[in-house]
């Protein structure tokens, strides 16, 4: 089963508010990670995004567990979105590695 989220439907064409991204992740993605095989964040209709939003949504999602990284997928990213998603992925995986190191 796939959790498919159209971000433009929730936030419009510019994703700018980190607090709202954090709240959205907490209520609409985190509870469904285990029950879905794939999580698709769909950027169709999104023109631009900032780092605050990308990191609050994606970096903090990825840093939760290795399971998220295996399930996560991004659709319809334009060039502006893609560079910010890649940085959020890099930050998230770095935080994840730090957490795993602390646990070990």
């Amino acid at each position: 089963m796939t959790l498919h989220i159209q971000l433009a439907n929730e936030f419009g064409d510019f994703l700018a508010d980190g607090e709202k991204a954090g709240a959205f992740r907490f209520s609409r993605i985190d509870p469904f990670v285990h029950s879905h095989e794939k999580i698709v964040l769909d950027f169709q209709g999104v023109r631009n995004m900032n780092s605050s939003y990308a990191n609050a949504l994606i970096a903090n999602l990825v840093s939760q567990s290795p399971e998220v990284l295996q399930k996560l997928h991004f659709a319809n990213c334009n060039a502006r979105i893609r560079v910010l998603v890649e940085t959020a992925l890099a930050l998230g995986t770095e935080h994840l590695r730090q957490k795993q190191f602390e646990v070990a």
Partner: protein
Amino acid sequence: MLDRLGAGDAADEIAVDFLPVTFWTPGALVLLLAKTQFWRKQNKRVVFHNCKECPAFRYFQRINFYSLCGLQLPEDFQRHDAGSRFVEIRRIGGEGSASVGELSTDIAYCISPDSHVDDPEQSGVFDLLEYSVSELANNVIQHAKAPGFAMAQYMPRTDLVRVAIADHGIGVLRSFADNGSPLCKPDWTDADAIATALQPKVSSKSHLPSPWGESVNAGVGLTLLKELCTQTGGHFFLASGKGVFSELAGREFPQQKTLTTPFQGTICVLTFVRSKIRNFPEMMHQVKTAVGLLPNGKEFGNFFS
């Protein structure tokens, strides 16, 4: 100007004379607004002299400068939509203010309506402004604990785009201290706090969980804005408390100054050379790689479709 206005903090009544002034930058306007709000909150009397005699009187009225200062002056002109001719000063946070996204898109549109297109080769100015205003506005909302003001301006003669945001909140040092940041040292100065805030992956709140689990602050916003300014041949300016940080493209080292009297909140001014602004995703990729946020050789291609 920061020091001159700071002198008002010790007075019960502050008089501001507009007559000798013919040109105001966005930084000067939002700074005076933030200071006026701060003084009024402290029950000081603020008097504006020669408002009507000032050559920019109607312009100041139209961009809502006086009304945001709490001064309702009758207007002898018809208000038309600002369109792309000028940018009204916008309030950040507090009752009735627009969302960060709306505010940032509006300001970017006013400065560069022609570049509001899909093609990143042509939309660089719009994308950069929208991104920059939104990051600074998020900082005000997340850290300042008081409203702020935003303004932008393009001067064709100098080809400079300026974005300024000022608030009369708690400032950078107190944000670290009040949030119990492990980075904050007892003997820290405002300059120390600013220098730390400008480092990548540092935020006064990054150690704190948010209501949504982990902190929503990755601490990369100011670092990237500083790099974007210098990449376009521009200038980055940040002042808070007694600390002033200024970095000009082409200079080997940034400048740091200490003010005589502290500025209660935070002011940040970004200056870009418009003709040097190009494809925004490429600029972003370059600055992120430069500050170590995009590790070289790391591939994420299999995440995208």
